[in-house]
């Protein structure tokens, strides 16, 4: 099997060119999907028969929580690629994606807490999902702190990769143990997101929002990665001419 395409992915110059073409598409798709999803979810979806209109928070809470979890898996995958094939671009992806993932986890926690107020009557309940999200936020903090503590760029990326891989193996264990702990300490409460079969007109705007938030993530990640690649490659000739062109245009 021919693996050149894989190593071509690792070339910063190739990445910079291709990502420059993709970025506007992702940005436009994100803006469109999020706009449509927001209006649809906020204004057109029917209210929930139990929670009324407060359930509309679901349209931001669930997509963001989805993204926060898959972003951690992405960190581990990027870490693995960086460790095994020594592709520098994977290191860049890992370090650029971690803060975005932490912010998404933060949004999921805040919206979950706000949603909890009308639903449970308190801002915070040690519900299995919220608690898992809180732990996920701590895991992100760990990776970001480790990356910033190690001065050498390459070993920082490798150390973060190891931590992310250990973390991703741990996540299912954490998730199940937290669920078990929750069922032990609380009677089965009304959970936020598990609903008996969501009707189509409620479910479709959610799908749009999930797609939109993934496009948003892709756009922001590419934005961050392109800057980082430019910084790292500042001495190579293609980056020099690119910087000259950008500076001249500005």
């Amino acid at each position: 099997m021919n693996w050149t395409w894989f190593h071509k992915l690792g070339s910063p110059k190739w990445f910079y060119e291709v990502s420059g073409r993709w970025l506007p598409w992702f940005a436009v798709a994100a803006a469109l999907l999020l706009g449509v999803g927001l209006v649809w979810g906020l204004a057109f979806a029917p209210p929930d028969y139990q929670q009324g209109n407060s359930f509309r928070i679901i349209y931001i809470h669930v997509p963001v929580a989805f993204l926060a979890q898959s972003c951690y898996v992405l960190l581990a995958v990027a870490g693995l690629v960086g460790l095994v094939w020594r592709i520098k671009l994977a290191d860049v992806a890992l370090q650029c994606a971690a803060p975005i993932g932490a912010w998404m986890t933060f949004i999921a926690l805040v919206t979950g807490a706000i949603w909890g107020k009308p639903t449970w009557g308190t801002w915070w309940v040690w519900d299995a999902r919220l608690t898992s999200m809180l732990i996920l936020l701590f895991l992100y903090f760990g990776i970001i702190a480790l990356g910033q503590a190690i001065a050498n760029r390459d070993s920082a990326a490798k150390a973060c990769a190891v931590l992310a891989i250990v973390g991703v193996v741990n996540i299912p264990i954490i998730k199940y143990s937290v669920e078990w702990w929750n069922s032990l300490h609380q009677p089965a409460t009304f959970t936020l997101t598990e609903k008996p079969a969501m009707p189509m007109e409620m479910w479709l705007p959610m799908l749009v929002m999930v797609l939109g938030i993934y496009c948003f993530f892709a756009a922001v990640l590419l934005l961050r990665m392109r800057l980082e690649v430019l910084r790292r490659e500042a001495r190579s000739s293609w980056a020099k001419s690119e910087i000259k062109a950008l500076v001249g245009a500005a």
Partner: protein
Amino acid sequence: MSPVFALLLARESRLLFRRPAELVNPLVFFAIVIALFPLAVGPESQLLQTLSPGLIWVAALLAVLLSLDGLFRSDFEDGSLEQWVVAPQPLPLLVLAKVLAHWLFSGLALVLLAPLLALMLGLPARCLPVLLLSLLLGTPVLSLLGAVGAALIVGLKRGGLLLPLLILPLYIPVLILGSGVLQAALQGLPATGHLLWLASLAVLAVTLLPFAIAAGLTISVGE
């Protein structure tokens, strides 16, 4: 068992016994943390008894973590770690010996001290076997997970608060299972299932984590 493993185990134990303070400090820390709680929440025995499983496990968690901070530091500073990395023996095996030696002294001492402190918190004596078993199964996992963090930050001048930040979230399953077992025992429920879960976590940790520790050490040494 390979001779290197036994040799390394002997070397580590000799080194540990030359610095007994490093063995005793985590134990004193463990006892102090436990003693803080009655002072903070009041001496009411019923409340302390219900809280005791959680208190013991949180204190044990912190004590293990504290004792691991300098696990690889002296080896890093005198260059033995570099020898380990280039040695013909597999690094995960060497690392496993190192962590095992550390656990045999500091971890085991902690396990033995725990029943005394548990009795002081009012945990009934019938729960002590479960406490001992759960700590015996849980503390190796804590040691191995903490060693991953210690390996990653060994090269840093100011590791300090970083180790707990990296590792405490990963300790959560052990904390939940360990204190859950004790709570079940306290309420007179069967605890075997949770103990088996702890045992499987321990097996998983012993088989997989030495590789992560070895990877972390290679990165730190290569810096």
